[in-house]
């Protein structure tokens, strides 16, 4: 492994971690609302959340590009208000990874919340705790293993993201290059040995992440 390879591994790891950290609060909130309440527009939100799972990643990337580009509604506003450009930057990589990992986190978290007996939350309320407090003291701790598995799964998904990232962040060496992009680039330029080295790293990282997720899920099943 060359120093620049380690730099790619490090960059991929931290953008993946950051993207997951950013989606945890909204992801848990959406999962909680989907798991516990009936509300108008719930089916629509369920479908919207799941879209990145079934749409081609490059299509999701194109949506992000149009949204975050300097002429896009969000990107234009960010540029005019703060002078910030998102696309073709590390921030664009984080945005792409976050959007692509979001459905996996929500799905796992929703299941984890649904497995918490409603009864315990009800009784906690009769003991004088409001819904917010019950969430923090009962629902969240009881769902923690499922939530942790979801976080690890989302992180694993982010590690391997390619299609949306290349659309919205491009391939800029040292700036937006993730493991997936670097492997693709190496194959394109005929540097197969480089591609295989990075592939080995990818396999190890994905294996560890999935193993951890699986381990957490199994411990949850066993109580």
């Amino acid at each position, binding site marked *: 492994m060359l120093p620049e390879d380690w730099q790619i591994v490090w960059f991929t790891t931290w953008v993946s971690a950051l993207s997951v950290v950013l989606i945890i609060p909204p992801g848990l909130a959406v999962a909680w609302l989907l798991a516990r309440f009936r509300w108008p527009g719930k089916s629509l939100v369920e479908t919207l959340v799941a879209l990145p799972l079934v749409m081609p990643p490059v299509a999701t990337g194109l949506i992000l590009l149009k949204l975050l580009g300097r002429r896009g509604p969000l990107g234009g506003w960010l540029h005019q208000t703060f002078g910030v450009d998102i696309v073709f930057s590390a921030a664009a990589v984080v945005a792409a990874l976050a959007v692509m990992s979001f459905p996996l986190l929500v799905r796992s978290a929703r299941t984890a919340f649904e497995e918490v007996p409603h009864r*315990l939350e*009800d009784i*906690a309320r*009769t003991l*004088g705790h409001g819904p917010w407090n019950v969430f923090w*003291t009962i629902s969240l701790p009881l769902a923690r293993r499922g939530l942790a598995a979801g976080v690890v799964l989302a992180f694993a998904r982010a590690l391997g993201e390619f299609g949306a990232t290349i659309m919205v962040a491009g391939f800029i060496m040292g700036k937006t290059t993730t493991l997936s992009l670097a492997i693709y680039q190496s194959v394109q330029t005929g540097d197969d040995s480089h591609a295989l080295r990075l592939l080995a790293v990818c396999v190890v990282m994905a294996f560890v992440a999935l193993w951890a997720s699986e381990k957490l899920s199994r411990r949850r099943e066993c109580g």
Partner: protein
Amino acid sequence: MSLVLENIVLPLAEFTLEVDLKLTAAVTGLTGPSGAGKTTLLEIIAGLRRPQQGSIRLDGEKLTDAGARHFLAPEKRRVGYVPQDLALFPHLDVRANLCYGLRHDEGGLLEKVIEVLELPTLVKRSIAGLSGGEKQRVALGRALLAGPRILLLDEPLSNLDDRLKGKILPYLHRIRREFAVPMIYVSHSKAELGGLCDEVLVMREGRIQGS
């Protein structure tokens, strides 16, 4: 204590629950066949279910007024509820379960509950390691420590064998004697009801049909 349920109406799958009731006894027993609506009635009083019509007042305070869309949240009612399945929190140890609803322990209530229910040896144990009778006592203690104005006990001994029932019943008498918390006690057992309750109401298909 005065608990007044006026014209409570809630349609259920098999029948409509309709209750008009004024309770003043220290311990009121509630019995009747399974599926008669006893648990639903307790849940309505605890604020966990909303009736379609009617009102509930506890010591003059309006807990529910369906006509005015007033449903006081369960956490503000100070109505203790021990369900049949006990609903102990599995991720908390016995002490944390007991203290969950305890706000200010100025009068040494925690110590008193631990003493009366004979819990000193259990406080550091996990919920999973408790026997049925021990769980029962922890659930009773947890509800008492939240400082309820009334305690709703839904068939608290139904999951215990006769030997354990005989062990837990004295604790209920102690609770009645030491804490003076009014109770509604749901049970199928005439022996339990006769020994503990000042009056016993019979519920069938959502209606109180006598005492």
